[in-house]
């Protein structure tokens, strides 16, 4: 079982051209400076940006292939995305945010709430369900965003700078929890981060992107900074 992605996205001032292969139950960290194309990779995998060339497939199922005009709608890809900043829906309560994916797939409210209960308890969100996203702390927003993405049982979990809203102390504190979440997720895990320490601590493998291209692809323990001669952070 593998995730294969050759992603080419052409923009007027930017070309993203990467080739990624990931085995099941592995965590890949994408690191690199701003504008390197990390988030674009996630968006292409999630189906929010169509690729101009290449192919994206998960477990042999093709999601996007311009040459054969194959395109699977984002809603049918089984890919859970935790967006930068959480991107919770302000017009809904925390509880409605968490069950959104099930409700969108046609589950009745009561059923969705029942299915969500173990996850809500696991993430300690029981007391927050009737709150609005704007009343939450950075850490709470991230937990809700992750629970929301996990509830639909995706095959792929994409996390875009999941700790960007936390201060550095909270970030380190959160690391252990993240590690447990990622390890407990059966499937493919891709994490975008600009924090080398986080990449080392959470991932098995690190890919460094610069200006839309892969410049390094190493085991996480061998990774020390963005590129061979810069020390990240």
């Amino acid at each position: 079982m593998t995730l294969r992605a050759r992603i080419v996205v052409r923009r007027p001032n930017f070309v993203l051209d990467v080739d990624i292969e990931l085995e099941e139950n592995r965590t890949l960290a994408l690191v690199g400076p701003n504008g390197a194309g990390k988030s674009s990779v996630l968006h292409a995998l999630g189906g929010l940006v169509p690729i101009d060339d290449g192919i994206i497939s998960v477990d042999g199922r093709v999601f996007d292939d311009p040459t054969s005009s194959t395109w699977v709608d984002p809603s049918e890809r089984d890919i859970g995305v935790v967006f930068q900043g959480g991107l919770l829906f302000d017009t809904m309560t925390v509880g409605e945010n968490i069950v959104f994916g099930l409700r969108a797939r046609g589950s009745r409210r009561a059923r969705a709430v029942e299915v969500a209960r173990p996850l809500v308890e696991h993430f300690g969100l029981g007391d927050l369900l009737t709150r609005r996203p704007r009343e939450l702390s950075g850490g709470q927003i991230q937990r809700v965003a992750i629970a929301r993405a996990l509830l639909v049982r995706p095959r792929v979990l994409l996390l875009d700078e999941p700790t960007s809203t936390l201060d550095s102390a909270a970030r380190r504190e959160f690391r252990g929890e993240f590690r447990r979440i990622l390890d407990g997720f059966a499937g493919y895990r891709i994490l975008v981060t600009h924090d080398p320490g986080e990449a080392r601590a959470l991932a098995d493998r690190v890919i460094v992107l610069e200006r839309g291209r892969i410049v390094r692809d190493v085991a996480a323990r061998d990774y020390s900074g963005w590129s061979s001669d810069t020390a990240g952070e």
Partner: protein
Amino acid sequence: MNRRGIQRTPWPVSVLAALAIAFFTLPLIGLLWRAPWRDLLDILGRDQVRTALWLSIRTSLAAAAVATVLGVPLAWMLARSRLPGRSAWRALATMSMVLPPVVGGVSLLSSFGRRGLFGRHLEDWFGVQLTFTVWGVILAQAFVAMPFLVLAVEGAIHQVDSRLEGAARSLGGSPWYVFRRITIPAARSGVAAGVVLAWARAFGEFGATITFAGNYPGRTQTLSIATYLALDVDPDVATALSVLMIAVSFAVLVGLRDRWLGRTVAPT
């Protein structure tokens, strides 16, 4: 006014703004001064007036509903879709806003009138006649009012962070589900503002309505048409009706402004 801050109002601005306020206020004062206060309740209690008021309320609400049902999707198309020639479509959709209302009425007659391009078939095939009926009033009002809604809602949808829609799509939401559950709720203050503006425009509509739907008491004679006609016969009645329309419009605008309209300007 904060005299010490750098945001002091320049005096020419104050003077001209005060003139603008006077420009809006003086006609109101004139109207209130002329109003037949002693006979007001008597005039407003007359059958013809009550019928016209009730007709205006019903038709303007129906026109606002039509404008909302058709205008919100159109606004979304203009804001979000990759529709080719979007600005041309927008110009077309908002043209009736700048068109003289009577011209709107004439074009409605030539298309949906009894001998109009489509109207004749409506009559032949379905036995439906729009001109000189209450449906004609609603059609004329919606025609003139919808652009206000479309512009307000399109502006509001532009303000919605499109990444939220992407997040909802990746969670399994179909485009229609995301439209209903994410986009429109996030743009709700703009939608509400648009509905109120469209309703107000429909409530006061005169030119297109009288041209297309005529002036039949009880059927197509709205309050503004009744006001215009009364001006010739009994100016006191026209003034009394004007006071009534101002009262209704003012009450709605003041009642809703803080709840909805204000928020589109300064989201909290």
